[in-house]
């Protein structure tokens, strides 16, 4: 998947292993952490004044009142306890707070900015003496260094930028810092790294806020650099029981099964084979102006067996036949897909057919119109079985093959809805 955010805690641990003079005094609290045990392992927690903030891949924590500064250990714990497992809304995303980062509180004057980004032709390093929350407003002051693919970061290049931006006394240290940080950036296969701000305290560089994204495909190269870290699920992304069930199906088989419920009361449901095709169906529904009615997004691919396909289909059918449409509309199920390379269409349909049979009564009761479109190996048999099923069950199933444009079933269904 590449480009995945990691916790500030893990990022800072990584920094402490690579940067001269940064000790990486950080502690992480999650719902399972025993504060007493944590304080025993990290005695500085009780000795220093502390800063506390959520560590869940979202920014603008200050603006949302989610940073506590200059707290004692007891105050910090109280602050966390008050918020642990509570829902908050950040930049219009609602989510539960579960992880908090604790660091020593360090009074400081200057706030500097450094960021690194991977681009198609080069890595870009951004450097500014005016860091902090206003860095975007002061973007003119940010200096950039490009490191083209296949080249190394030259000390002289860094010197030039550092001279332009920083005071004489800090230059050597900042130059070393940038060099070391870039080395970590490269060796750790970061796709993005931002330290905003960092400061200088007692002759040492101290990163204050850190955001990092890693290229997770490089895990096999980076075990040592990364250490023991996990890729947290994005803030606010929680899984309904049905989504969690499909996640589990997905992890158990070699095939790919994905489900996101967007709008449980939507009346357009999709069951699409293939990642590319699933985007195209969702696109078309959106582009035709029915995005708000799209109930789910997902796909099945990679030749799932009939059992897995059955459970996947059943999950979707169950969700869509729980209640009648609140506005009295029909519901539509699009069993779509492009032309498969090697997947036996008749075989994958077997699981879907089994689920449809099981839900036939509910489907009729709720009023579901089904549209099928698919091609590939053995598609004629698969489509014929779908047609027969519709006749036998008395359920309206409209079946199309490769002679019909892939997304036409969406427009057929939607034109019915329109009229």
């Amino acid at each position, binding site marked *: 998947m590449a480009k995945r955010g990691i916790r500030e805690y893990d990022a800072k641990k990584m920094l402490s292993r690579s940067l001269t003079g940064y000790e990486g005094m950080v502690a992480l609290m999650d719902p399972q952490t025993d504060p007493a045990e944590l304080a025993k392992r990290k005695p500085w927690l009780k000795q220093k004044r502390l800063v506390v903030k959520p560590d869940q891949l979202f920014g603008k924590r200050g603006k949302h009142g989610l940073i506590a500064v200059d707290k004692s250990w007891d105050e910090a714990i109280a602050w966390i306890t008050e918020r642990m497992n509570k829902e908050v809304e950040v930049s219009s995303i609602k989510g539960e707070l579960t992880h908090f980062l604790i660091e020593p509180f360090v009074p400081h004057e200057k706030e500097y900015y450094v960021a690194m980004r*991977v681009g198609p032709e080069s890595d870009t390093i951004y450097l500014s003496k005016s860091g902090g929350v206003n860095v975007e407003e002061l973007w003119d002051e940010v200096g950039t260094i490009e490191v083209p693919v296949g080249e190394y970061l030259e000390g002289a290049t860094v010197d030039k930028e550092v001279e332009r931006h920083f005071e004489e006394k800090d230059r050597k240290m900042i130059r070393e810092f940038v060099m070391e940080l870039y080395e970590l950036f490269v060796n750790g296969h970061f796709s993005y790294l931002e330290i905003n701000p960092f400061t200088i305290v007692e002759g040492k560089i101290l990163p204050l806020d850190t955001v990092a994204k890693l290229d997770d495909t490089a895990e096999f190269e980076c075990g040592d650099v990364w250490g023991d870290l996990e890729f947290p699920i994005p803030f606010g992304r929680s899984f309904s029981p049905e989504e969690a069930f499909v996640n589990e199906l997905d992890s158990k088989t070699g095939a790919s099964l994905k489900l996101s419920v967007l709008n449980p009361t939507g009346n357009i449901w999709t069951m699409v084979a293939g990642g590319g095709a699933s985007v195209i169906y969702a696109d078309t529904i959106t582009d035709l102006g029915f995005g708000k009615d799209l109930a789910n997004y997902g796909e099945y691919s990679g030749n799932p067996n009939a059992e897995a396909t059955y459970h996947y289909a059943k999950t979707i059918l169950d969700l869509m036949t729980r209640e009648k449409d609140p506005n009295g509309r029909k519901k539509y199920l699009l069993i779509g897909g*492009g032309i498969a390379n090697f997947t036996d269409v008749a075989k994958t349909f077997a699981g879907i057919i089994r689920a449809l049979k099981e839900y036939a009564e509910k489907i009729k009761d709720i009023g579901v119109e089904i549209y099928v479109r698919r091609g590939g190996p053995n598609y004629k048999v698969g489509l014929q079985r779908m047609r027969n099923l519709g006749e036998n069950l008395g359920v309206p199933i409209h079946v199309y093959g490769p002679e019909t444009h892939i997304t036409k079933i969406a427009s057929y269904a939607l034109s019915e809805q329109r009229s």
Partner: protein
Amino acid sequence: MSTKEYELFNRDTTAIIFGLQANAIQRMLDFDMACNRDKPSVVAVVNENKEGWHKVFWGEKEILIPMYRTTRRACEAHPEADVMINFASFRSAYRTSMKAMEEDSIRTLVIIAEGVPERRAREIRNKALTLGKTVIGPATVGGIAAGAFKIANTGGTLENILEAKLHRPGHVGFVSKSGGMSNEAYNIIARNTDGLCEGIAIGGDSFPGSTLFEHVMRYEANPNIGMIVVLGELGGREEYKIVDALNDGKISKPLVAWVTGTCAKILPASIQFGHAGAKADSNEESADAKNEALRKAGALVPKSFDDLDVLIKETYDKLVKTGKFKPAPEITPPPVPNDFSKALSEGLVRRKTEVVTTITDDSGEELLYAGVPISRFIEEGGGIGGVIGLLWFKKKLPKYATDFIELILVLTADHGPAVSGAHNCIVTARAGRDLMSAVASGILTIGPRFGGAVSGAAEMIKGAVDEGLSPAEFVAKMKAKGKNIQGIGHRVKSVRNPDKRVELLKDYAARHFNKTEYLNYALEVEVITTKKKDNLILNVDGCIGILLLDMMCELGFEKEELEEIIANGGLNGLFLLGRTIGLIGHYMDQKRIKEGLYRQPWESILYSLPKEKELETA
């Protein structure tokens, strides 16, 4: 090998495949056949584990494709191949790709692996740009030059390929990020134009080895291509290069474009589409913005994907009217033989079998012994006697019979180290040979004088009874023929020193068999023979053979069946099986106590050689 800048593949293009991908190679060759190519498009395979030859079908014939351990050696041997298709895993794709590009003869490199780190992918592209080579991928199915050359699994099954008319070139150039959708795109193109000329899937990563823009510009330069279709994706800024080229007037051919991912705006930001690169980091990278920019620059952009087919058709029809090219003629592809297994599964062919078995079936979900699933056999308490009944005689034997068989196995398992079988086994084990050799050397000793008289005894006694000879007549007849009666006589056992094993067998039969016609007859024979010599007793081999005869009669074996079992030496099998247990024991024993090489002591040998003189002939 192609020399034109804009052309990566033609009908003479040949490729080296890194990784032994038997299916992909076969599919390429089947495509070649459907295109009427003169020569296979795959000339060599690089297999780091093994060199030699890889067997493939070229039409209905089999041919060998050489297999090398290194890319270097494959390239040296096949300098005409300018394409490498790299099937290395995501772990080794970088290393093997960098190596491949060092070969002068490789002009195009295709990387199939998904999950190549982005930083590595960037290096691969950088090297390709420096060396003036083209990289397709990573994370791609590849691409296809219709009627000329197909990369690996592109296009799916041959049926798909023919339906999408990929066996002959049309006039449409296609490039997409997605490989999964390329089949669908070829279908759309085939149904609305005269077909595809060339199609490339660049792969879904953020930093592909070659870009949408680069392939569009190749198509622009290719005089065989009349119009271009691009399927982009949200994320990245690649499509803006096409926008710039359109604005700068660098693209003269009609260009139909669509950027997928317009639904991103209604999905939660945290949903990642399948492709690594499919994520918009800014509004400019969104599908809507890119579609709008392309439209403004003069590309033909539909309102939604749903109208893409109509737009392609309109564009094509207009183009044909200008008379710039003539629609490609339909060509009926030559028939390509079906794979046997596929045809078989579809019921299209049948063939005679070479081997018949009537006892075991391992082809289903569960192993069957003479039709009985082994789990049920075990549930029903079946033991080794029951297995022998099923596999040797194809019968479910009653308990008294299976117990009797097991009794035989117990009694014949071993008879000490002095008997010839065990002795040979020990000598072989001590000579340092392995289990199989030592046991085989013991088994090979079994014959008419040692352990192998089971069948012989049964045969002789049965013959005598069937002929209606009295025991006395039988003994007299054998004497007249100068033949020993098999199963009679023992080296050490005698009337006064009876064989306990024979006693146990007789005792079992007395208790469990209804009648023992053959045993009774043999015992009458024994009465006569022991009068002549004390040790001419019914021995253990004989007793086993004759009681098995009685048992099989009692179980109702057909006469022919019974005679066949005896004639084929089937009854000797029980001694062979039983004694193998002992031989294995002797082998393990000798190894355990680490006995050295056995040598017959001189004093136990009589040396009796002729004098040299006696050898002289007249």
